[in-house]
């Protein structure tokens, strides 16, 4: 049986790990190579690196970061941030990413998903969606790091993206990001009802109970950042708690 994955997420800006609340008020959270290596040792199933640099110079670090992290990592690595075309994706893959995540660029030009899936395969093509609740039980896509609300319905967008070739959805609740108030379970269930590709739940994790609830709601993997970066818990402790509560994870 396939085990649900626990995935630490490193938001990287200008080569350093950062973390904020609802994508704002970023604070430093260390060196990406040391972070990734430590989480691997704790039992992480995969690492996600999202480059959130505001400038092209900052984004240039993403390839270097990927190269360095790859050397120490014997688990899968997904990298996103600033990918606008096949060439950007190829640079990250050649540097050592196993999957590439796209967000704003795919909203602006959905054909990007088909291009990436056609060239590198769906299993390599991750669509990151930042979702904000627009009315009870409805969500809209937000882009540009949360600064722009698009009015695009999240369920419609992920369904289209999966048809175009997205092999996995990294689903972040903008409302819950960094708040530690639990994942948006209704959002996860809504997306799980429209796609059959894997869903990584993101935004709001505080404890193992939250991870369990997201998996029960339809996620196949759970992303965590703040609780790990702040040292409040470890991947190992979260997995022990999940195992104790009957969720079969990779030990």
């Amino acid at each position, binding site marked *: 049986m396939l085990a649900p*994955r626990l995935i630490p997420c490193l938001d990287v800006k200008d080569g350093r790990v950062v973390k904020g609340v609802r994508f704002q008020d970023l604070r430093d959270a260390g060196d990406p190579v040391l972070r990734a290596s430590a989480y691997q040792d704790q039992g992480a199933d995969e690492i996600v690196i999202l480059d959130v640099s505001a400038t092209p110079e900052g984004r240039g670090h993403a390839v270097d970061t990927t190269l360095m992290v790859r050397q120490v990592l014997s*688990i899968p690595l997904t990298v996103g941030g600033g990918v606008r075309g096949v060439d950007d994706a190829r640079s990250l893959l*050649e540097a050592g990413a*196993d999957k590439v995540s796209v967000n704003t660029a795919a909203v602006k030009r959905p054909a990007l998903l088909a291009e990436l899936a056609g060239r590198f395969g*769906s299993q390599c093509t991750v669509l990151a969606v930042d979702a904000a609740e627009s009315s009870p039980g409805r969500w809209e896509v937000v882009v540009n790091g949360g600064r722009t609300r698009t009015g695009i319905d999240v369920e419609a967008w992920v369904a289209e993206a999966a048809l175009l070739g997205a092999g996995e959805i990294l689903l972040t609740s903008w409302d819950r990001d960094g708040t530690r108030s639990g994942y948006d379970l209704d959002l996860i269930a809504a997306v799980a009802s429209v796609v*059959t590709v894997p869903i990584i739940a993101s935004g709001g994790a505080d404890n193992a109970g939250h991870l369990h609830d997201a998996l029960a709601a339809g996620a*196949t*993997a759970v992303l965590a950042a703040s609780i790990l970066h702040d040292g409040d818990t470890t991947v190992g402790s979260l997995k022990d708690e999940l195992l104790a509560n009957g969720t079969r994870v*990779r*030990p």
Partner: protein
Amino acid sequence: MSVEVVVVPTGTANMASVAAAFRRIGTELSEARSSEEIRSADRLVLPGVGAFAAAMERIDERGWRQALVDRIDEGRPTLAICLGMQLLCEKSEESPGVLGLGVVSGTVTRLPEHLTVPQLGWNQVMPAPGSRFLMPGWAYFANSYRLTSVPDDWTCARTSYGGSFVSAIERGNLLACQFHPELSGDWGSELLSRWLNGKRVRS
């Protein structure tokens, strides 16, 4: 002393993770440049992500099909990973009409529709008794297609995802894995190391 490990550039494969995994166990990979190199390299890695047809097309464009078949028939140490394992088969539902290497009798089929596809994540590998390289453990998979049976002359490891499938096969010095040993943590590194050094499990 390190042995020569040559990797087949299938065009669609992401080589960086495979190269990094071998570097961690002390070996640098080099890319194959000729049929002769493929036929006679000390160790050969056939990696692959992406589509069956694209990878076979690439192999045929370079005229490498016969060299691959020959080295496997001759029992030279060969490691096939993910799509690489599928390429060993006769054909795949992914690319109807395209001929694989045909070293393994069988057709690669798509995972059942009711499952989450692709299978992305860690699953348990259960080797058959008498396995040379494989130990039971957790491996990382990223696949939409798989093989469900192989002829009896292959030692076969199995994994369950909506039913049992063939997660690895072994015969002599050949090891083919549906999973990614290069992304399967310490368990995967140890497997690569055993294959590289031709060492048996529990030797």
